[in-house]
């Protein structure tokens, strides 16, 4: 009795430590992510709340944009649903772990408990199938969008790791439920319920089938391995998220809520440029007037974006939300015709650079400059100029990411700050400035067509 008590005390302590560690580490990462996103420039997305909520429910919760391609959408939905439903079980894990109880809710919830666990089991089976298909699709079928240049090394591993973890998790769940079922059959489960079967949809059959012939001692050990394995997987997964493309399962919600609700063709007007141009048009404006006494002369703001701090916070949130699915790049006309540009890579570069700058700031101080920048060290000019601004990437993204706005901000920096613009575009711009047309025609000839044959 004392030994068992001792063991359960130890396991409660181990569990408590694990729990505290999991949530503090996750909390620390959340703060880090929040700080990184806040490095971005302000942008007001607090309007049209109803429409935003609706967008979020449709796109993130209902996965509306995924369902344009039915098979991957359904498979992805199985994994997503299994994840969401399995998370509710976390509550029982925590209660059991901290009190040493076993299936705390089994007794009080009764039949409802059977329904919940059965749903988890059924979804787990579906998720298991989906995971196998996804692994095959990623590694055997060579779907083009998973084979592009940016999908080597860590991104590729990241995509696979999660699928392996998913399989492990499901194996643990069925080991736990299956062995417990057999133990209950033998009247030896620690669960406080009447009867000799839990009646769960899958494990009440699968359990006896796989574990029925095993010794009770083995079952007890396997059951514990299943329980601990399953919870370690969930805790591990939670802390893996912030380092992975799988962070989208959380960020998809705020990211779609804060979507751009304007027409996709509408580019924002730079307010600092607007002010300057308005002054030029204002006959009463005197550029030599000194600012009023006491008002500090603000350092002029940079036009466009050279580094991640010049992007809006929404672009940075976009980068954290990117699932690296590549739907954008496979729809991109530039990418399809062999140009270097890949909108997915734009998002991945932005994220990598944001994490780098964030870490630098934390470790080496706020003003530390590592001499690198998003434009140049991560994204090349060649990529930036290959975009046709066609919005296909924006249209296709299942979590409403806008790679185009980043590309435009980088162009703005190149043109307005560095005058680095392809020669023909420089000519085009001069023509507009001088003749009011992108070609070299005189404005006086603009109406000539009327009288031409």
């Amino acid at each position, binding site marked *: 009795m004392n030994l068992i008590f001792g063991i359960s005390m130890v396991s409660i302590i181990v569990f408590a430590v694990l729990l505290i560690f999991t949530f503090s580490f996750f909390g620390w990462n959340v703060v880090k992510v929040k700080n990184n996103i806040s490095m971005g420039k302000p942008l007001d997305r607090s309007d049209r709340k109803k429409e935003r909520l609706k967008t979020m429910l449709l796109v993130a919760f209902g996965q509306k944009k995924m369902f344009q391609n039915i098979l991957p959408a359904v498979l992805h939905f199985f994994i997503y649903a299994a994840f969401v439903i399995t998370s509710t079980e976390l509550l029982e894990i925590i209660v059991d772990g901290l009190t040493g109880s076993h299936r705390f809710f089994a007794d009080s919830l009764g039949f409802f408990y059977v329904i919940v666990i059965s749903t988890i089991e059924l979804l787990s089976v579906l998720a298991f199938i989906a995971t196998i298909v996804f692994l095959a699709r990623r590694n055997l079928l060579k779907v083009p969008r998973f084979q592009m240049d940016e999908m080597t090394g860590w991104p590729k591993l990241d995509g696979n790791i999660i699928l392996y973890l998913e399989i492990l998790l499901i194996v643990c769940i069925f080991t736990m439920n299956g062995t417990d079922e057999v133990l209950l059959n033998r009247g030896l489960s620690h669960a406080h319920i009447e009867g000799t079967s839990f009646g769960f949809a899958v494990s009440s059959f699968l359990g006896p089938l796989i574990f029925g012939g095993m010794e009770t001692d083995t079952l007890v050990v396997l059951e514990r391995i299943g329980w601990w394995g399953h919870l370690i997987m969930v805790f591990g997964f939670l802390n893996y998220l912030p380092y992975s493309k799988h962070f989208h399962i959380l960020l998809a919600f705020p990211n779609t809520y804060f979507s751009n609700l304007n027409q996709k063709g509408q580019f924002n007007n730079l307010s600092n440029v607007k002010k300057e141009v308005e002054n030029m048009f204002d006959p009463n404006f005197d550029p030599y007037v000194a600012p009023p006494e006491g008002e500090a002369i603000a350092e002029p703001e940079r036009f466009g974006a050279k580094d991640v701090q010049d992007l809006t916070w929404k672009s940075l949130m976009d980068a954290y939300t990117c699932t690296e699915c590549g739907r954008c790049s496979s729809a991109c*006309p530039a990418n399809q015709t062999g140009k270097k540009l890949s909108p997915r890579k734009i998002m991945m570069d932005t994220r990598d650079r944001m994490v780098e700058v964030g870490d630098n700031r934390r470790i080496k101080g706020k003003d530390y400059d590592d001499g690198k920048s998003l434009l140049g060290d991560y994204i090349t000019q060649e990529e930036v100029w290959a975009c046709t601004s*066609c919005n296909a990437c924006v249209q296709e993204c299942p979590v409403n990411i806008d790679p185009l706005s980043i590309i435009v901000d980088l162009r*703005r920096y190149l043109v307005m700050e560095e005058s680095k613009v392809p020669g023909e575009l420089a000519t085009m711009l001069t023509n507009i400035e001088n003749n*009011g047309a*992108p070609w070299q025609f005189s404005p006086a000839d603009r109406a000539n067509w009327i009288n031409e044959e």
Partner: protein
Amino acid sequence: MSNSISVPTVAQMMANGETPEILFWVGCSGSFDDRAKKITKAIVKLLNKCEVKFAVLGQEESCTGDPAKRAGNEFTFMMQAMQNIQVLDGYQIKKIVTACPHCFNTLKNEYPELGGNYDVIHHTQLLNALIREGRLKIEGGSFKGKKITFHDPCYLGRANEEYEAPRELLQKLDAELVEMKRSKSKGLCCGAGGAQMFKEAEKGDKEVNVERTEDALEVKPNYIATGCPFCNTMMTDGVKFFEKENETAVLDVAEMIANASDL
């Protein structure tokens, strides 16, 4: 076939104490590009036929600034925008029709924040409205039974979610309207947008317009219909690339409607 067209400028109209029902924003392409000028004329003929009291700005029109904005030059864009807004507001313009989705998008979406508020429509939307009002009647004419495929301009389609207006018009031609494998929100760009029209493409293994023309030729159309002067150029070049000029013609929706009406 009547060749005489009547194109008053707003200034002339105002001088006569009249105000236009709608301003026709011709655009740089429509004013200067030889191919696009034909589209402009087709629209004018249709407007004349329907007795729409329209006017153009003539020499007072200037680039909307779209290519400058897409190329990243906000200064040039805003200089153009504010200058145009001064002219438009000077004439108290309320309603504008354009034949170019780029002008359309810029005037409609990007001018309001700079103080220019107008009701802006694309010519395919105007033609539809004229049909609905009973002012324009179309019969299939030479297009009867022909196969037509419509290429969605990015700045009309995805950028402004207008997919139906051009299709509704084409359906009136008694022709067979076939969709390419990628169309509407999935339509592929012709390769001209984002100021690409004015520069060589970056290094790659194919031109975008060739890729897109392939989509179009796949359905073996007699006509590729467009709603944008730049798409028109790109698709025409694409058809030439495949040496299919004899089988497939590239026309703007407005040209087809004008042809069908014997204009």
